[in-house]
C-alpha cells in the first residue's frame, strides 16, 4: 500500500535516455549562434578596453619618461626610458613614508572595521530586536553624506583628544563609512547560511565563541574577504579626511601627491611614478577576491 502511494508523491527518476537528448539539442543552437556572430564583433569591446586603459597607460608611460621628455615632443612610448622617477620615490623619505603611512592606517582600519562588523552583522542576520530594520538602514545612510561634512567635527574632536597626525586617528575616522559597509556585506553573506547550522552546532555542544570561530567564520570566509577588500579600497582612496587629520608623521601618499608643487614647478615624472605605485596595492588585493567581487557589490545578496 505504501509503495503505490509514495509513487504518486515522488515520480520515479527520469530514464537516462531522456536526459541525453536535450543536452545534444541545446548545444546545437549555441554553436549556430557562435557562427552567426557578425564579423568585427571583437571591435567594440577592444575599443572599450583601449579607452579605459588609455589613462593608465599614459600614466605608466609618463612614469618612465624624464620631465623634459614629458613636456617636450609628443611620443607614444618613452624614447629614453628612465627609472629615475621610481628611484626618487624609493629613496626620498618624504615620498616612501607616504606609502607606509597609508598602508598602516588602511590595514588598521580594515582590521577594526571587519572585527567590529562581524558581531554586528551576526546580530542583524540572526536576531530580531526592536528597530532592527531601521537601525540597519540607518547604518547605510552614513555613506550618503560627503566626507567633507565630517572633516570639521573630526578635526575638532581628534584635536581635543590629541590624536591629530596619528595613524589610528585616520583608521578610526574611516570606520565611519567602512563599518556600515562591512556590516551590510557580511550580513548578506551570513544570511545565506541557514540558521539551522548555528543550532546544530549548539546542539552538538559548541559554545557561541567556539562555534563562531570554528564553524561560522570559515563558512563566510569569502564574505570576510570581500568586506576586507572594500574597507581596504575605500580607506586607500579616501583623501579628504586622511589629509585633514594628518600633518607630517601620518601623512598619506595621496596627500603627498597633491602637495608636490616645488619652486622648480611640478615634477611630472615623479608624480606619475607615484600614481603607478598607488594603483598597485588595489590591483593586488582585488586579485584575491576576484571571484566574489560581484557578490560584494551586491552587498552579499546574490
Amino acid at each position, binding site marked *: *500500500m*505504501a*509503495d*503505490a*502511494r*509514495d*509513487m*504518486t*508523491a*515522488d515520480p*520515479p*527518476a527520469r530514464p537516462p535516455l531522456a536526459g541525453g537528448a536535450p543536452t545534444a539539442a541545446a548545444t546545437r543552437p549555441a554553436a549556430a549562434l557562435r557562427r552567426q556572430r557578425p564579423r568585427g564583433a571583437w571591435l567594440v569591446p577592444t575599443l572599450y578596453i583601449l579607452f579605459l586603459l588609455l589613462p593608465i597607460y599614459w600614466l605608466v608611460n609618463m612614469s618612465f619618461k624624464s620631465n623634459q621628455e614629458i613636456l617636450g615632443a609628443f611620443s607614444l612610448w618613452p624614447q629614453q626610458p628612465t627609472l629615475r622617477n621610481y628611484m626618487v620615490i624609493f629613496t626620498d623619505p618624504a615620498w616612501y613614508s607616504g606609502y607606509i603611512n597609508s598602508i598602516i592606517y588602511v590595514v588598521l582600519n580594515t582590521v577594526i572595521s571587519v572585527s567590529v562588523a562581524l558581531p554586528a552583522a551576526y546580530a542583524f542576520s540572526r536576531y530580531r530586536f526592536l528597530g532592527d530594520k531601521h537601525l540597519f538602514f540607518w547604518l547605510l545612510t552614513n555613506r550618503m553624506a560627503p566626507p567633507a561634512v565630517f572633516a570639521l567635527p573630526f578635526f575638532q574632536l581628534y584635536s581635543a583628544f590629541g590624536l591629530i597626525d596619528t595613524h589610528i586617528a585616520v583608521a578610526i575616522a574611516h570606520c565611519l563609512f567602512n563599518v556600515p559597509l562591512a556590516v551590510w556585506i557580511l550580513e548578506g553573506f551570513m544570511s545565506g547560511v*541557514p540558521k*539551522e*547550522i548555528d*543550532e*546544530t*552546532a*549548539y*546542539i*552538538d*555542544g*559548541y*559554545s557561541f565563541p*567556539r562555534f563562531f570561530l570554528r*564553524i561560522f567564520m*570559515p*563558512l563566510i570566509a569569502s564574505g570576510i574577504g570581500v568586506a576586507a577588500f572594500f574597507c581596504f579600497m575605500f580607506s586607500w582612496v579616501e583623501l579628504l579626511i586622511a589629509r585633514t587629520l594628518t600633518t607630517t608623521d601620518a601623512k598619506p601618499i595621496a596627500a603627498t601627491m597633491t602637495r608636490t608643487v616645488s619652486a622648480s614647478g611640478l615634477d611630472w615624472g615623479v608624480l606619475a611614478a607615484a600614481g603607478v605605485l598607488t594603483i598597485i596595492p588595489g590591483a593586488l588585493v582585488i586579485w584575491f577576491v576576484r571571484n566574489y567581487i560581484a557578490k560584494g557589490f551586491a552587498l552579499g545578496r546574490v
Partner: protein
Amino acid sequence: MLELRNVTKRVGRVDHIRDVSLALRPGTLNVLLGPTLSGKTSLMRLMAGLDQPTAGSIHVEGRDVTGVAVQKRNVAMVYQQFINYPTLTVYENIASPLRVARADAATIDREVRRAADLLRLGPYLERTPLALSGGQQQRTALARAIVKKAGLVLLDEPLANLDYKLREELREELPRIFAQSGAIFVYATTEPQEALLLGGNTATLSEGRITQFGPTTEVFRRPLDLVTARTFADPPLNTISLEKAGGAFLLDGAPVMPVPAHLAAVADGTYTVAFQPHHLALAAQTPGAIPIRAKVTVAEITGSETFVHLAFADARFVMLAPGIHDLEPDTAVVVHVDARHLMMFDGAGRAVLPTLRAA
C-alpha cells in the same frame, strides 16, 4: 523520561504550541503526526531547548530543565533540510559532537567509523558534505546524531526531502539503528503512513495542540475525536453528516444505511459518520458490509491501486481500491462500507463509543 507540563509557546500574538502536556519514556519511538504548521517543529524546538516556552515547564528525569541552555541538554537533532558543516569533511562532521565533548582520538575514530558503517558512509568520509548526494548528506546528519549518544533524539521530517527509494530504505533502518540506544526518539512527520510504518507511539497534532497520544495503531484505530481521525488519514477521511434514528441512518429524512451492530446502542441524533478510504470496496468483502449507491467522479490509477472519487448525495468520498479499475466518470456504482470500521462523532467532534468498536 521527558515531560512537558502545560507548555505554551506564543510568538507575537500567535500560539504556536497551546497547553501541551506529554510524557515520553526512554527507549520509545514517538511520532509527532500532523499537517504542516501544526506545530511539530515548534514542539521539537521546545524539547531540544532551542526555544523557551512562554508558559509551562519541561522536565527531564524529574528535573526542571526549562531554562537550561541547549548545549547542556544532551539532545541530538536532525532537520528536514540537510544540515551539515559545509567546510568540514564528512568525518569531521560526524566527529563534531565528540570533539566538543573532548573525547580521545581513539574513541572518536572508533565511533565515527562505526556510525559511518551503519549508514554506509565509509567511502565518503574524506569528502565535504556538499560533494555528496542529498541522501548521503542526510545520512551524515543522522550519523552525527548517532555518535552523540544523546538521551533525546529529535528527527524533524528527516526523510521528507529524500527520493522515494532512499526514504523507504532509511525508514526501515532508522528504528533499528536507534533501537538499542535506550534514548527517547521523537520523529515528526506529515504522513500517516510513515507513522504506521514506524510504529511506537503517536501524538497527533493540530493547530499547536496534541489531540491524542498513545500507541500508534491504537490512535489510528480508535481516534478519540474527529480532528485526530482526520489527521491520521491519508487519503482524506470520508465523512458525512447523518441522522441516526433507531436502526437506520437517515439523510434528509430518507434511510441510506443501517446502523452497524457496534453503534446500535448510541442515542438517536445527528452525527458525523466517518470511515477510512480503504474501508470502502467495490465488492462486499466482509459480512455486514453496507452497500451504498454513489457516482464516480474521477478514478486515479496509481499502479497497483485505484483512488476512486465518489459523489454520494452532497458528500464526496474517496475509495482506495486494490487493483486497477477503469471507471468512467459519471458511472453509477454500488460500493460497500465495511460496517465494523464505521466511526461516529458527536456535534463537538468527540468519538462516540470508541471502545466498543471491533478492531
